[in-house]
């Protein structure tokens, strides 16, 4: 029976979805940008090569990895460095790294590589050009790197449990795209099929980086162990992902791109509504769900964090997993609208971790209902930015009420409600958050408290006649211009606005980071503080030479080996 994308079940209410604690509980799903990329590369039979691998015995040198798609090639140009430990920092303010990279649009000439060698290792202090699509860097996980090099050098395979605990040999500490530091603007690639979806350039860069890191660790083991060095077993190598270490920069991103962020969340909500509207599940669909439920638990068992917030969330998630198991022994998904029943049950029985885990997992059996939505995740509506000046004061007040009604009663002068301020430091322009009443930062505050600003605009609008226009109001009050724009954007982007206080004394920026990273497809969120998180990418994924349509999608769910 052919499935129709009929949705009797509505999307979840933005007022529910867009709370920070829920955003901070999001999990990857089949719409994630990494999985979109690996599915496409397998489907289109991309080929991969390593035209340059010129690394010396100290681990210093250059390598190039080329991914050839149906119409175009992309090349990762990698520079390996010998980094003293005291220089190893994941922060923006670092100025040296274990490895640095650029993703080149096409196949670089020797002159291109020479030019990049003078700039890419400097990262923000260098310049790249319109032929480069991204600029990035990575640092080693010192303990796992040493363990893998030492094991292989002595002829042994590394210990899998140590690999699962760390998850990666190197973690990227920034992947800059979209015109940063001279690279090509997003517009250059936005109309290409393979890069139309968000962050495909960055995801490809990280995918190739993972291969480079595997090859580099093998090279270093061979240098150290000589003839007795072992070759890294592919079944072990597959569990090596690439880490990512992320600070506050990502939080402003989702506030500053409300249409784009809306599209990600709305597409996932639409996918969920479609699946919940399925009347009966086939045996194959139920089996697929059951299988991936089992496999995902193995991945979750490797998820480590020492941060108290995440320790608690992991305990919640594990309790939720047990509750889901019990539910499935009685319900068996054989009743009408099985997925809707499951989701409704989860809303009464599980924490937000478990609810969002299920909201992602139930999408898995429904490739035909879900995957086509991926084409709606980019932001191609630049006209949404333009304010409709003809709108009446009455209507714009109603829009603010609709999105920020929860905030209108808050006392925004109370210290606990505005304790924090977001700012950019002059030191390498690092995004930071500080204490408004304790540090001299308020004059530098970034507009990252849309709810507070909406309440201020709402108050100013109350002095105006309902029939007057937004244009008249904004002529006198340009200070509310960004807020009126956001209120109007929310008409078509209802999931673009966080329905929570982003400057309260209790705000956890890691919630915003996790929301964004979950759409990349990240797993194993490991907060290092309330404003810093490490994650794992591509662990379990096939390497380029292994990639097939059979393994291109579900690699995120590990299969227990016998």
């Amino acid at each position, binding site marked *: 029976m052919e499935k129709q994308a009929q949705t009797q079940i509505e999307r979840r209410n933005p007022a529910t979805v867009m709370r920070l604690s829920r955003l901070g509980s999001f999990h990857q799903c089949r719409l994630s940008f990494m999985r979109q990329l690996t599915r496409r590369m397998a489907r289109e039979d991309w080929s991969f090569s390593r035209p340059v691998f010129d690394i010396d015995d100290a681990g210093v040198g250059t390598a190039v990895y080329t991914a050839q798609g149906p119409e175009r090639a992309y090349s990762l140009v990698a520079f390996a460095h010998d980094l003293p*430990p005291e220089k*190893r*920092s*994941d*922060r*923006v*303010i670092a100025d040296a790294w274990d490895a640095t990279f650029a993703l080149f649009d096409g196949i670089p000439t020797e002159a291109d590589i020479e030019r990049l060698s003078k700039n890419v290792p400097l990262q923000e202090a260098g310049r790249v050009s*319109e032929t480069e699509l991204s600029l990035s860097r990575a*640092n080693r*996980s*010192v*303990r796992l790197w040493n363990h893998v090099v030492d094991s292989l050098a002595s002829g042994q395979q590394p210990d899998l449990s140590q690999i699962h605990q760390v998850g990666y040999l190197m973690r990227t500490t920034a992947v800059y795209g979209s*015109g*940063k*530091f*001279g690279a*090509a*603007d*997003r*517009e250059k690639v936005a109309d290409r099929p393979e890069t139309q979806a968000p962050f495909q350039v960055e995801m490809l860069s990280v995918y190739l980086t993972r291969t480079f890191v595997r090859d580099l660790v093998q090279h270093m083991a061979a240098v150290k162990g000589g003839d007795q060095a072992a070759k890294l077993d592919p079944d072990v190598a597959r569990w090596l992902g690439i880490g990512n270490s992320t*600070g*506050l920069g990502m939080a402003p991103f989702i506030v500053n791109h409300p249409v784009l962020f809306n599209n990600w969340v709305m597409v996932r909500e639409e996918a969920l509504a479609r699946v919940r509207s399925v009347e009966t599940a086939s045996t194959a669909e139920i089996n697929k769900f059951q299988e991936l439920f089992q496999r995902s638990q193995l991945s979750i068992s490797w998820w480590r964090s020492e941060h108290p917030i995440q320790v608690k969330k992991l305990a919640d998630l594990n309790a939720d997993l047990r509750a889901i198991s019990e539910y499935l022994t009685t319900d068996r998904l054989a009743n009408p609208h099985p997925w809707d029943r499951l989701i409704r049950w989860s809303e009464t029985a599980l924490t937000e971790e478990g609810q969002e885990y299920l909201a992602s997992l139930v999408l898995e059996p429904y490739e035909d209902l879900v995957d086509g939505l991926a084409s709606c995740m980019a932001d191609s509506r630049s*006209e949404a*930015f*333009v*304010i409709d*000046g*003809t709108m009446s004061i009455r209507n714009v007040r109603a829009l603010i009420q609709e999105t920020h009604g929860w905030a209108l009663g808050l006392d925004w002068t109370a210290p606990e409600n505005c304790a924090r301020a977001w700012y*950019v*430091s*002059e*030191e390498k*322009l*690092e*995004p*930071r958050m*500080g204490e408004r009443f304790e*540090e*001299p*930062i308020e004059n*530098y505050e970034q*507009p990252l408290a849309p709810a507070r600003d909406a309440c201020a605009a709402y108050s100013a609008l109350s002095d105006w006649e309902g029939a007057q*226009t*937004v*244009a*008249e109001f*904004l*002529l006198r009050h*340009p*200070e*509310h*211009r*960004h*807020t*009126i*724009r956001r209120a109007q954007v929310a008409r078509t982007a209802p999931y673009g606005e966080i329905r929570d206080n982003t400057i309260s004394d209790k705000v956890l920026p890691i919630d915003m980071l996790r929301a964004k990273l979950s759409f990349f497809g990240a797993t194993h969120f490991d907060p*290092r*503080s*309330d404003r*810093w998180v490490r994650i794992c990418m591509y662990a379990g994924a096939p390497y380029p030479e292994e990639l097939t349509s059979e393994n291109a999608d579900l690699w995120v769910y590990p299969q227990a080996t016998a």
Partner: protein
Amino acid sequence: MNLSLNEIEATAKRATRGAGYSWGQAEEAGKATRWLCAQGLDGAGILARLLALGFATDPANHRPQQLDGRWRAEGDLCPLSVGPLLSDTARLLDAGAIEMQPVVAPALLLPFVSNAARIQKCALQIEFDSVQAVTDGARLYSPDDFPDKAQRVTIKKGAKLDMPREHQSRAHPTPTDWDALNQFAHHTYAPATEESRLLGAGAGLSDND
């Protein structure tokens, strides 16, 4: 210099905020400067010269007092006030031409006229004294250079767009103008303190693990 349009937009936005304009105007100044550069015009230089005038310290003096009749202010009109207003009130063009006087850095009006053209779904003509330009939203017909100040600006419907400018994917500001924008942008950056260095980004843990 050879910059991406994203760099132009980001720096123009910060510079405009650093010069004292509202965040909303700064966002639009960023997009406007980018649009000018994409048309091969010197967006960075035009914005830098405007910001140097310091109009943001006295905004009421540089925006129209009323929308009826010709737009004028006590002082010269600021394009970052009348430009957004023009975009907001594009429908007024149905009733006839919009006139204003005098406007500094009038080239910065062009991106806002392009917004109005998109809203009106037709090409619009803009006259700066004796200089003429036409835009239909995406495309622009215009000379390469514009006066620093137009005594009189008129925007009206009924134009035809011939010979549009070639779109550019990169911008080439002079180092002097780029430095000027970065100096304004610098006003938005908080001076680094040891406390903020340690706490503000949430690190402080060793990354040698």
